[in-house]
C-alpha cells in the first residue's frame, strides 16, 4: 500500500510538502538528540529543569557560554528550547494520540449504530463544544493544578469532540457503501464491519486533520504555559520561555530590541514547529487522498 515512487512523485510536484517533512524531521532529530546537543549539567536530576546561572532578572545576550543567551532569571535559552522540543512532541503526540483513540471509538459507535446512541453521544459533544476552548482548558488546568500533565488532560478534554464528530460524519458516509452491505450480506459482525471495512476507508481525513492539529495543540499548550497555567517554573517548555520574556519584549528606550533573543528564539521554534506539521498534514493529504490533492 505504500508506494514510494508515488510518494516521491507527489513530493516533487509539491515541494512545499517536502519542506514540511524536512522540518518535522529536523525537529524530531533535535528532540531525540537533546541529551547530546544540550547536555544536562552534572548532578541535575530532572533533565527538564533549565539550568540557571545566577538569579539576575536581566537577560543576557548570546555568548559562548549561553549560545542563545539567557532569559529572565538567567535560564539558558538554548537548553530551554532544545529540551522544549521534547516537551512539545510529548504534548502534541500524547494529546493527539488520545484524542484520536477517543474520537474514533466514540465516533464509530455513534455513526454506525445511529439512533439513540448517536443522539446521546452527539449531545455530549455539543456540551463540550459549547465552551470556548481556551477557557475550558484553563478551567481544567486550574482545577487540576498547574503542571504539564494537567495541560495534557485539558487539551484532550477540549479537542476530542471535534474528532468524534469528524469520524461520525465519515462513518455515516461510508456506511451506505455497497461493500459494507456486501459484508453484512456475508454475515460479518458489527465489530468486523467497523474495523475492517468502514474505518480503513474513512480514517485518512482524520489522520490528516490530526497532523494539522498537532501544531495547534502545541500552540495551545504554549498559550496555557504563557498564562502560567502550565508546567512549573523553570521547566523546559516553549510557552514558559515566552512567559519569561514577557517583560523584556521591548527593551529600554533607545535600545528597543535589546532583548530580542528572549522572545524571538522560542517564538521561531514554535513557528517552525507548527508550520512543519501543517505542511506535513498537506503532504499526508497529497499522498493518502489523491481526490483532494492539488493536481
Amino acid at each position, binding site marked *: 500500500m505504500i508506494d514510494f515512487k508515488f510518494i516521491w512523485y507527489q513530493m516533487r510536484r509539491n515541494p512545499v510538502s517536502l519542506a514540511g517533512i524536512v522540518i518535522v524531521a529536523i525537529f524530531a532529530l533535535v528532540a531525540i538528540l537533546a541529551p547530546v546537543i544540550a547536555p544536562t549539567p552534572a548532578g541535575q536530576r530532572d533533565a527538564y529543569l533549565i539550568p540557571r546561572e545566577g538569579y539576575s532578572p536581566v537577560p543576557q545576550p548570546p555568548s559562548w557560554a549561553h549560545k542563545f543567551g539567557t532569559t529572565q532569571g538567567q535560564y539558558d535559552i538554548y537548553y530551554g528550547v532544545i529540551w522544549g522540543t521534547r516537551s512539545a512532541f510529548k504534548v502534541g503526540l500524547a494529546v493527539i494520540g488520545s484524542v484520536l483513540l477517543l474520537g474514533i471509538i466514540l465516533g464509530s459507535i455513534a455513526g454506525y449504530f445511529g439512533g439513540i446512541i448517536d443522539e446521546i453521544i452527539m449531545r455530549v459533544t455539543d456540551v463540550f463544544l459549547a465552551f470556548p476552548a481556551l477557557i475550558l482548558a484553563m478551567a481544567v488546568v486550574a482545577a487540576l493544578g498547574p503542571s504539564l500533565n494537567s495541560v495534557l488532560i485539558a487539551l484532550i478534554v477540549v479537542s476530542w469532540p471535534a474528532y468524534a464528530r469528524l469520524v461520525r460524519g465519515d462513518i455515516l458516509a461510508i456506511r451506505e457503501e*455497497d*461493500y459494507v*452491505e456486501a*459484508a453484512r*450480506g456475508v*454475515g460479518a459482525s458489527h465489530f*468486523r464491519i467497523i474495523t*475492517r471495512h468502514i474505518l480503513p476507508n474513512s480514517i485518512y481525513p482524520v489522520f490528516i486533520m490530526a497532523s494539522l492539529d498537532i501544531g495547534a495543540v502545541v500552540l495551545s499548550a504554549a498559550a496555557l504555559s504563557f498564562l502560567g497555567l502550565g508546567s512549573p517554573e523553570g521547566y523546559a517548555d516553549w510557552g514558559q520561555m515566552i512567559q519569561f520574556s514577557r517583560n523584556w519584549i521591548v527593551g529600554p528606550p533607545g535600545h528597543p530590541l535589546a532583548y530580542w533573543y528572549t522572545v524571538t528564539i522560542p517564538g521561531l521554534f514554535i513557528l517552525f514547529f507548527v508550520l512543519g506539521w501543517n505542511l506535513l498534514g498537506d503532504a499526508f493529504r497529497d499522498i493518502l487522498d489523491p481526490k483532494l490533492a492539488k493536481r
Partner: protein
Amino acid sequence: MEALVEVRHLKTHFPILKGLFRRPAGAVRAVDDINLAIRREQWMGLVGESGCGKTTLGKTIIRLLRPTSGHIYLGAPSDAIAEIESLEHSRDGHHRLKALRREHDLATFSGKRIKGVRRRMQLVHQDPYTSLNPRMKIRDIVAEPLAVHGIMRGKQASERVANILRLVGLSEQHMARYPHQFSGGQRQRVAIARALATNPEFIVFDEPTSALDVSVQAQILDLLKHLKAEEHLTYLYITHNLSVAETVCDSIAVMYLGKIVEMGTALEIFHSPRHPYTQALVLSTPIPDPKTKRVRIILPGEVPSPANPPTGCRFHPRCSRATEECRSTEPTLEAKEGSRLFACWHPLE
C-alpha cells in the same frame, strides 16, 4: 416440484417520517404483497424499471432488509409452508404457527440464525466499482465469508480462494492485488467469487452487468451459465434489460410499482405478453436491427411514486385499455393458462 425459494405475501414498506418528531406519515411501499416461487436450479429473471421495487425484493429475500410482513422460505418442506398458510387464516393454533414460523420462515429470523442462513444465499451487487472494499486485497475479500463463518483460515482459505478464482476465470496471481487494479468485468468476477465462497445454493444478482460493456456482459453471462451448471445453483437475476433476461432466464417475473404483474417463461413473456405493461416493455426494448421498425407503444407519463400508488390496478393511469374496473379494483396475480400468471382485467390476446 418443490421450490427452493418461496415468498408469500411479502411486503417491505419504508416509513416516511415527517415533522419535528419524525412521525410516520405514510410509507414507501416498495414491495407490496409479492408471491414468488423459484425452483431448484432455475434461472428466474426479475424485470422492471427503476423504482419498481425489484432491488428491494431481492435484498429482502436474502434478509439484507427487514420485511414489514410476509413469509420467506429457503428449502422449507412444502407441507410446512402449506400449514403455515392455513394457520395464518385460522383463529387458533397461534403457538403452532409461531413454532413453525420460527423454524422455517426466514422473515422471523434475526441475529445468529440469519448468519447461519447467509451461508446458503448470497447477493452480487450492481456496481462492481463500489461493491469491493478498496483497501482489501482480493484474497481477503473472497476469503472473508470463510473467516466470518469460521469455515477455514490461513493457508487452507488461500487455497480455496485460488480455486474459486480459477472457477470464475481469474488466476492466482490476482489474489494479492487490489480492486482498483482491475477492470469492471474482472471486479464483478471477484464479487461472484466472493458469493461462491461458502457454497451457497441460491444467488441473487442485482443488475450485475448494467455497469459493464456489452462484450464484458456477454462474458459474465457465459460465466454465470457455466457456474450454474457446475455448482447446481439457483439464480434470481434482477435486471431492467428485457433482452438480457430473455436470452438467459428460464422464467421471468415482471414488476411494476411493487407488484408482480406478469410471470411466465422467457419465450412467453417476450413473444406473447398478456399484461399491457409487459407489452410496452417488450416493444420499448431496442433491437440492434435498423430494419425492424417496431410498432412502438410509447407509454405516456412517468412512473408514479411508490409512496402514493394509484388506486385499483397500479398501471391504469398509463394504460390505454383502462376501464372503470381497472380504476377501482386491483387485479390479483392469478394462474390463467397453466403456469402463466398475470394480473390484469383486460389482458392482451
